[in-house]
């Protein structure tokens, strides 16, 4: 029977795509100029980990990989109630794809020590793959629940409600295991004033901060640099093309009379008629 005592949560800093800054005219992101934020999906993973802490008193460690400014999201995690943070920062990680990223992160996890549960956000808003979580689970030979939207701990098992097309399922997972949390997880809480104040105090106390946020590199976590970054990545972006002026596959109607535009959409979007009341 396992009562989770050590919980890890994987988080990532991403460019804020709703801010115009740092979005190049060609649609690529200039990461140096872009506004940064905690990956919105990771809030759900973070909340999952903190919910376990509330239930069992487990210690929660937040792990991120990124350049030094990623410390910002670790501070945010601390204000939410995370106990400890690890930042993996190493220039040799540049251009890592999901395979190389999952390798580096699994090395940090091994370095961190024993754990009962690993929480991840479902996916990131900049990569959008939902692959890193399951790839970590594979590298560490763990069972996984992806798309978890609710859970409870029962009889030493992790009982999870998992999103499926047209419904959901309840599964029971032995621990240790890995969970990716969907954005339909409905228990988000915001940082308390106390949490925010705690972090403000910490920011004035370099020693205390260092004790809570450990910065590591590939050598410290015993990761092979050849498996990381551009060289360790089995996939590359060979080229990018702009998708039309407005992007996506949206059929945009503009400049015509309102009745014409509405009629065109009525013709093209069959759902309008399909679900209209008879």
């Amino acid at each position: 029977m396992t009562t989770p005592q050590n919980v890890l949560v994987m988080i990532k800093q991403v460019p804020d795509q709703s801010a115009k800054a740092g979005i190049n005219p060609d649609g690529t992101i200039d990461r140096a100029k872009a506004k940064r934020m905690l990956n919105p999906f990771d809030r759900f993973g973070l909340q999952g980990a903190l919910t376990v802490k509330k239930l069992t008193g487990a210690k929660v460690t937040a792990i991120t990989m990124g350049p030094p400014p990623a410390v910002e999201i670790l501070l945010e995690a601390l204000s939410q109630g995370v106990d400890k943070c690890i930042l993996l920062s190493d220039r040799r990680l540049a251009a890592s794809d999901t395979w190389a990223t999952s390798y580096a992160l699994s090395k940090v996890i091994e370095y961190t020590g024993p754990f009962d549960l690993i929480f991840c956000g479902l996916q990131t808003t900049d990569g959008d793959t939902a692959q890193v979580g399951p790839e970590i689970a594979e590298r560490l030979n763990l069972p996984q629940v992806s798309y978890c939207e609710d859970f409870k701990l029962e009889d030493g098992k992790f009982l999870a409600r998992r999103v499926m097309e047209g419904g959901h399922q309840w599964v029971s997972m032995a621990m240790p295991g890995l969970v990716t949390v969907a954005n339909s997880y409905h228990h988000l809480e915001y940082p308390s004033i106390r949490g925010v104040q705690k972090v403000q105090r910490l920011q004035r106390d370099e020693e205390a901060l260092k004790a809570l946020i450990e910065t590591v590199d590939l050598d410290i976590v015993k990761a092979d640099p050849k498996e990381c970054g551009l060289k360790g990545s089995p996939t590359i972006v060979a080229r990018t093309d702009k998708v039309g002026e407005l992007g996506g596959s949206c059929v945009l109607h503009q400049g015509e009379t309102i009745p014409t535009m509405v009629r065109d959409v009525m013709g093209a979007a069959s759902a309008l008629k399909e679900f209209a009341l008879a």
Partner: protein
Amino acid sequence: MTDTPQPSAPNAETPSAPVTPPAAEPLPTIVTPSNKEVVIIAEHFKGTLQPVTYELLGIGRDLADKLGGKLSCFLLGFNIKEQAQSLIAAGADEVYLADHPELELYRTLPYKRVITEFIKGWELPPHIVLLGSSTTGRDLAPRVAACLGTGLTADCTELDIGPYEHTNKADPDKLGIYPGCLYAIRPSFGESLKARILGPWNNPQMATARPGTFIPLKPDANRTGVVTDIPINLQGEDFRLSVLEIVHEISKGVDLADAEVIVSGGYGLGSADGFKLMEELAACFKNSGVGASRKVVDVGWIPYQNQIGQTGKTVRPKLYIACGISGAIQHRVGMDKSTTIIAINKDASAPIFKFAHHGIVGDVYQVVPELIAQLKAAQGSCPTVKEPALV
């Protein structure tokens, strides 16, 4: 996928790299060994094959023909033998069948073991492995890819075969021309860019494909193919997860999570009164509800229960009509799994138009009343017999 198209690694360690050939020297042609086979992993629910499987067979047939290889399909399940024929009729040359009670419902570890152990036993690996980017495909694909030690591209909207010339000297070991690569093409960065992602250094090259994107072949009962039973060696550790129950959500009225049609209003409505118009539009549909962005909840035009997005509800209706909503990422994460998204916004550059399916650039107060009028006219024009109970 690689998350940014970085120009090159800033840390390229040229001193330790082998001498790069002078520019004039032609690049060598490099062929990564494979048996040229394209492999699909079928998805079914309690024996019913999912549409995405037929779509994958459609595009898979095309890719296999371009490579001059065969198209095969894994089918794992229980009492599922008959389905093998429909896979063949839909384009497969061979079906790898694993029929076993423990495989009746999809579970990550047993499925991964059967598939990867079988592929690892081949003399040459397949060229391509494709899955759907459903909740099942996105669960299984990364496990299979990581287990086979190969790359994976998520959620592709186009797939093709073609050559790739690697000239990036930051990575000199890979310099060369690679024929027959899988071009895995997908939208990225809020979908305003299409990225062509490839990884010809390892086979299989893997991708998941967005359901509804590719066209299935017309089923042809005269097509012939082989059905091969494959070994099943499940281990104790494969049962670390069990399925307790599966719940199919049946719609029961106003609950947003169950609504088939959601009409959502944003700050563009200008005032709380705008929601009357939203309700009027919603009333034109069966099983519909009214949603909202956070900004209008924050200003108190509508209760929090109606908020959709990161800190509100996540919904997956068949039809989502966004009125005066800009389409911020926090709103988007709560609704972009909707089957059809129609956006009405007076700003043609609003981000909502990057992921909506149909957009009208115009004022909500002109467009929505017109839409209501045309919906009502359409209803009138196709009279239906009313249920006696309703009269």
